[in-house]
């Protein structure tokens, strides 16, 4: 089967061959594969490709997919405009008033 015509990530145009080649080049963690190929970084934020990529990675590693560490999926899950965010009127949260730490 021609894996160069199988699109894994539509947003960033990553084919299955690209993914396999990146793995062969030594990018064996999902996080580094994401950075190297651009997979899951597009408009859909991985909704279309992340589970397919983890399944493929499990095949390449010959390992259980449940053991593969996910990449961070940061909010929001959809692209927004700055104007939309600027229009938000967010009240102070009682539990959050004292914490300024970043959870990333």
């Amino acid at each position, binding site marked *: *089967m*021609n894996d*160069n*015509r*199988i*699109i*894994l990530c*539509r*947003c*960033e*145009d*990553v084919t*299955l*061959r*690209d*993914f396999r*080649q*990146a793995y062969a*080049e030594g990018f064996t963690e999902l996080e580094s594969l994401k950075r*190297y*190929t651009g997979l899951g970084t*597009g*408009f*859909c*934020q991985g*909704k*279309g490709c*992340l*589970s*397919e990529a*983890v*399944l*493929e990675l*499990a095949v390449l590693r010959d390992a259980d*997919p*449940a*053991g*593969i560490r*996910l990449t961070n*999926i*940061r*909010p*929001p*899950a*959809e*692209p*927004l*405009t700055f*104007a*939309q*965010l*600027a*229009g*938000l*009127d*967010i*009240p102070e*949260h009682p*539990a959050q008033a004292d914490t300024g730490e970043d*959870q990333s």
Partner: protein
Amino acid sequence: MAQNPAPAAGLPTVAITFDGETLNCRAGTSLAVALWDQGIRHLSHSHKFGRPRGVTCARGHCTNFLLRVDGVPNVRSCETPLHDGMVVATQDTGTFYGAPMQKMLALGSAWFPVGFYYKWFTRPATLSRFFLDRIRPMTGVGRLPDAARAARALPAAAEAAATPPQTDLGQFETIVVGAGPSGLRAAAECAGTTLLLDDHVAAGGQRLAALRELASCRDSHLGRFPTLAAALERLEAAVARLPAHDNVRFLGGARAIAGYHPDGVLVRRGSELMVARFKTLVWAAGALDTIGLFPGNDTPGLFGPRALYRLLTRDGLEVDGKHALIVGGGLDFWLSAALLAARGAAISLVVTEGGCQSEVAAAVDLKWALNTGLKLDEVRGNGQHMVQAVFVPRRNAPGPLGSHMHLEADLAVICGRGKPAYDIPYQLGADLALLPERGGFVPRALAASTTGDLELTLPGGARILYAGETLGHLPTDQVSR
């Protein structure tokens, strides 16, 4: 809600401009469907290989349906209603060097392996700068919204300047994301203040609109498909119970698009954003379509069943006289088939999963074109209008050419099992793992659980309750529950 396809004459039309050409479109559809009706399926080209792309998910997720509308870039064409005088433009020919360069880049892309930008043109430093200055603009640099339309381009900012909008929904005991069967069941069991969200305008889930539409068609053959009739009955009963609960506030056309630690949810309705807080989040957002991995899996004209329901019921996609190919199995397969047939499409079915004997018998009885024992091998686009699917016999190794089967259609529906929605719980701190038997990302704790619903306590003390298809496929077929 469900609207019947408009006959060609006697209905209002709107005139829009698409890349400088004036089109008269049927009113009341979304921009993407209006363009589809006009024979325009290729809304963009993928940015590395230049492959044609069109609407796929019909719910504002996928990347290739973005258009420049009234001077505003990156508008989701499948969510945008038509209006008279709309000016629409494709936005993928915008490289700094123009469209011919884009074509050349697409042709040459096959020689650029993955990650080339980390390896090539990096040394020596002086040459690297020379190349970067020329390569960077090739990808296109985007265009800001037109100045004259800035007020419309930035509605939230304009409104914020005039009157501060009410964007704080407040604190709820429970927020239920998804008003499908599981979400409705969970909301009915809530005692405290409850916010029920669904990205459909009406409650009932992804299949109810399709089932209602099917029931309203003259030749629905609903009687021949008891599973569909039973699903419709169950969903209608669940929706009918909703008004009895005064503590539940239903917000239609709205979806949770972000979860903020420890207990905040960001909600989008159209271009409007709202925040809400919860003590318990019921995650009943259902499943997303899976098209699967095969050559040509990005061909315009390929849909999942959930996208099809939206296009047919919400946007009134015209399929009368069109040829539709339906591949897969399960409830969505038969619902898609029955709905397309009832709406006047000529359908070809390829059943790739076992079971469903009574439905197969009904299809044979109805003289629907039906094939079994095949596996989808490849899909090719055939110009703007057709998709061509190639099948090989299942089980056996691909044999000689004669054993392949080619089917051509205007659109193809791939009814996979769907993958559970997962992003908001992850953002709130849930520990997820990919369990293949569940079809996607679900809480890791589920591997050890055999019961139906699952409850998680988040690091901040809030709770998430998983319900329905977000738990993935269940051992028994409870999809229509």
